[in-house]
């Protein structure tokens, strides 16, 4: 079991010894079952840290903000940032290292094992609670979610409330860390791509109808993009302006910037946005599932990334986020890469 007190103690020491600038961790959220990201600067605040089944956020997303903040400072504090990561999140760190977006010294990693469970799907839990508000949630040792509401406690088997990504997760514990919390439990999954297969088995028309119905809901809030630790580009095809513009950018450059995708949430534009988002994450997505979790309209965006993860594995034998030194999926090739589709 992950001992929260250990985590708190290590965090306290890190801050006390001034080894880290601050710690990105989880704290109690105001919104029912969910925890909330916390940025802890003062040693006395480490007591606010929590570790529970509602810690679904991938905190590595905030390394982007940290990098930008640092770039703005004249005399930046060069100490690392302490960060709490789960198994999937730790793979995100590996990808950011692989892409040289961050350096290993930029982060002090507090790796937390998901052990035999993972994080919950809030919607599944909400359904089980039928409108009641959870006051506290935790896993027991028998893979049950113990929920405390005003009416007392109930136990729900983990498999009924685990986030789908946790069910399909092949790692469960951090692959890169400075301190490890919890037990390293070996757990295999035979269902790594089950959600993808559900859609693959549809006919072409059924597939289109499925996605059309889903993307018609999209309001283009870009939460899926904003929450992703890999979506750190200064220039995104859906933005009206490039954030890489400086006073020296010529009028021609700005005028000739192509508007690839219109802002209108019409089917064509929304489809292209989502396809491009998925393609840009091919070989980079570590399936933290945050894009899907944050979608206010419940679009199963993760299925897109998962499909590419599956193809990368089956076509190119490529797995993401285990080796920070490997070449990225799309900037490498093998002679024997399939080409039966090429004339």
């Amino acid at each position, binding site marked *: 079991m992950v001992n929260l007190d250990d985590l708190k103690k290590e965090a306290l020491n890190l801050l006390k010894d001034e080894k880290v600038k601050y710690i990105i961790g989880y704290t109690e959220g105001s919104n029912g079952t969910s925890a909330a990201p916390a940025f802890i600067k003062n040693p006395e605040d480490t007591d606010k840290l929590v570790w529970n089944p509602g810690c679904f956020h991938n905190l590595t997303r905030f390394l982007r903000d940290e990098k930008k903040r640092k770039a703005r400072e004249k005399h930046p504090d060069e100490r690392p940032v302490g960060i709490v990561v789960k198994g999937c999140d730790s793979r995100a760190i590996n990808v950011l290292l692989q892409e040289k977006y961050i350096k290993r010294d930029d982060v002090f990693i507090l790796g937390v094992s998901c052990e035999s469970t993972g994080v919950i799907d809030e919607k599944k839990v909400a359904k089980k609670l039928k409108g009641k508000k959870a006051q506290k949630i935790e896993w027991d040792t028998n893979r049950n979610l113990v929920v405390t509401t005003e009416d007392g406690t109930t136990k729900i088997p983990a498999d009924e409330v685990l986030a789908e990504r946790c069910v399909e997760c092949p790692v469960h514990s951090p692959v890169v860390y400075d301190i490890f919390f919890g037990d390293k439990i070996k757990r295999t999954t035979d269902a790594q791509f089950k959600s993808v297969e559900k859609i693959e088995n549809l006919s072409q028309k059924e597939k289109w109808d499925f996605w059309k119905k889903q993307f018609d809901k999209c309001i283009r809030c870009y939460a899926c993009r904003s929450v992703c630790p890999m979506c750190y580009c200064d220039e995104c095809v859906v933005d009206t302006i490039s954030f890489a513009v400086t006073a020296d950018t010529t009028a021609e450059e700005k005028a000739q910037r192509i508007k690839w995708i219109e802002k209108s949430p019409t089917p064509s534009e929304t489809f292209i946005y989502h396809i491009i988002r998925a393609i840009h994450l091919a070989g980079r997505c570590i399936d933290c599932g945050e894009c899907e979790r944050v979608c206010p309209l419940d679009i199963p965006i993760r299925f897109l990334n998962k499909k590419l993860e599956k193809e990368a594995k089956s076509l190119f034998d490529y797995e993401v986020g285990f080796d920070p030194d490997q070449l990225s999926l799309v900037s490498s090739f093998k002679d024997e890469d399939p080409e039966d589709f090429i*004339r």
Partner: protein
Amino acid sequence: MAEEFEPKIVAFLCKWCSSAGSDLAGVSRMQYPPNVVPITVMCSGSVSPLYILSAFNKGADGVLVSGCHPGDCHYIKGNYYARRRIALVKELMEYIGLEPDRFQMSWVSAAEGIKYTKIIKDFVNILKPLGPQTNLRRSQ
């Protein structure tokens, strides 16, 4: 009688091989359907998936990406990168329910004028029964 549907094909041809191959077809007066809008690119490896989707968005019924044969790339490796990337795009397009036949890739060398005309002829024949591509087309 309604006019027969003539598909519009946007072809991204690499400058060194496929574009030269299409030129050869042209100067040799080989007959092939006039449905192609060729766009010369420096390398098939420079074709971003966004170009492909954008072509569909702007009204293409089919998109072809054509580069040098493996081993012949002017930039040594460009077409290998393209091969990987386009395999992924193709898989994803199929997964989303777009007709995968609307998107093709080929290797055409500067000497393969005949192969180029054949590819275009076949592509037009595949596209005709599919009718206009509307799924990704910008709405009026």
